[in-house]
């Protein structure tokens, strides 16, 4: 999930929703889920999140893995307590966990960076985030190369955790430090200043779709709140 492809084609209406709105709604959903104790209210919130997840286009393997994990969790809770408690706990856990993948699957790192720039997040944090997203796949490839080089020498790292430090991490750290030096030199020679004011090629805009999503979200959260706290 970390390696969400940067250049993946945008699909579905959720991709076009303002990323800041998605962040706020995710946080509200998680906070609400923590407070829920009513089965109907939790079920309504989970139903809404599952509909969104269906439109996000998650792979069937992740669906299957999630379903198995949820089944085991529910079975364990049922054994420890009873069916109502098991169903409530499972739904509540789903409501807490689902906003993350929905946000992740429908927001590219570039959109998230723009959103963070728009809320005036300190520029050094935005720089750090951009570097992490740009170089995380590069460093992962380096790690893979080092693992393959070890295999060529007859060292199977998956069977020898004792070799992880000298065989994988030490060479990887030397590569990472070299990358850090090279990137620093590259940025300095281009007179990059993290605190300098910069423009946005595609500034964030509030669209009608965002208004519609915000109204729908308020309606759903209102209904969830009514079910939870009206009795």
């Amino acid at each position: 999930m970390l390696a969400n492809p940067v250049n993946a084609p945008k699909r579905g209406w959720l991709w076009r929703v303002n990323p800041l709105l998605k962040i706020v709604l995710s946080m509200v959903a998680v906070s609400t889920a923590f407070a829920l104790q009513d089965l109907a209210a939790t079920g309504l919130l989970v139903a809404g999140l599952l509909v969104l997840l269906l439109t996000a286009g998650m792979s069937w393997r992740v669906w299957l893995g999630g379903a198995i994990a949820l089944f085991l969790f529910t079975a364990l809770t049922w054994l420890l307590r009873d069916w109502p408690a098991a169903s409530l706990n499972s739904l509540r856990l789903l409501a807490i966990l689902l906003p993350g993948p929905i946000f992740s699957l429908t927001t590219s790192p570039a959109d998230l960076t723009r959103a963070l720039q728009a809320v005036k997040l300190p520029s050094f944090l935005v720089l750090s985030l951009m570097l992490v997203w740009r170089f995380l796949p590069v460093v992962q490839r380096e790690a893979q190369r080092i693992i393959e080089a070890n295999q060529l020498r007859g060292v199977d790292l998956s069977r020898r955790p004792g070799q992880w430090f000298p065989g994988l991490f030490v060479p990887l750290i030397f590569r990472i430090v070299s990358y850090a030096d090279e990137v620093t030199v590259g940025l300095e020679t281009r007179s990059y200043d993290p605190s300098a004011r910069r423009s946005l090629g595609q500034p964030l805009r509030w669209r009608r779709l965002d208004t519609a999503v915000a109204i729908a979200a308020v309606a759903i959260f209102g209904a969830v709140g009514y079910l939870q706290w009206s009795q």
Partner: protein
Amino acid sequence: MAQSSKSWQLRDYVFAAFMTIGIAVTSVITVPLTLSIPLPGIRTVVWAPFAGIFLTLGMARLQRSGSVALMIGVLALVLSRISWIITAFLVSALVVTEGVMLLRGGFYGKTNRLLANVVFFSSATVAGALIGAYAAGDIFAAWVGQVWVLILMTIVSGFAGAVGWWLGERVVKQLQRAGKLNVS
């Protein structure tokens, strides 16, 4: 001149970002190994010896207060794409660590770095267990809330963090010998 009195430079931000990448890669490698073990803090215990290497390296290079916040704060933001729970417990742990290390005047010297590692991974276990248990429901909260489980896993996490510090200091020495790291 004490490094804490210097302002942050571009090279510091870049170095911290690359240490964050290292910590993220260690989580990608180690966390899947423990997914099926229902023990609070077990992921931190397995993650700490390797993540601690990068954390120690970052602290040795940056030294001033805010170093852990810069590395772990960005990691928390990146991992928010997987779950907000991870973000919550990482932020809790970094606040505790920075608070404790502020009293010690930053991350100078091996002892301070050892303490920072132990505090960070121990508090990550406590915060992760409490937030995770609350998310999973009262039955699991009761299991995790058993004081002996939490104390045991916190101690083991702190020890795993200390192992990470020890390995990290070895790498610091190797990098210094190779002329790749300037640590006073």
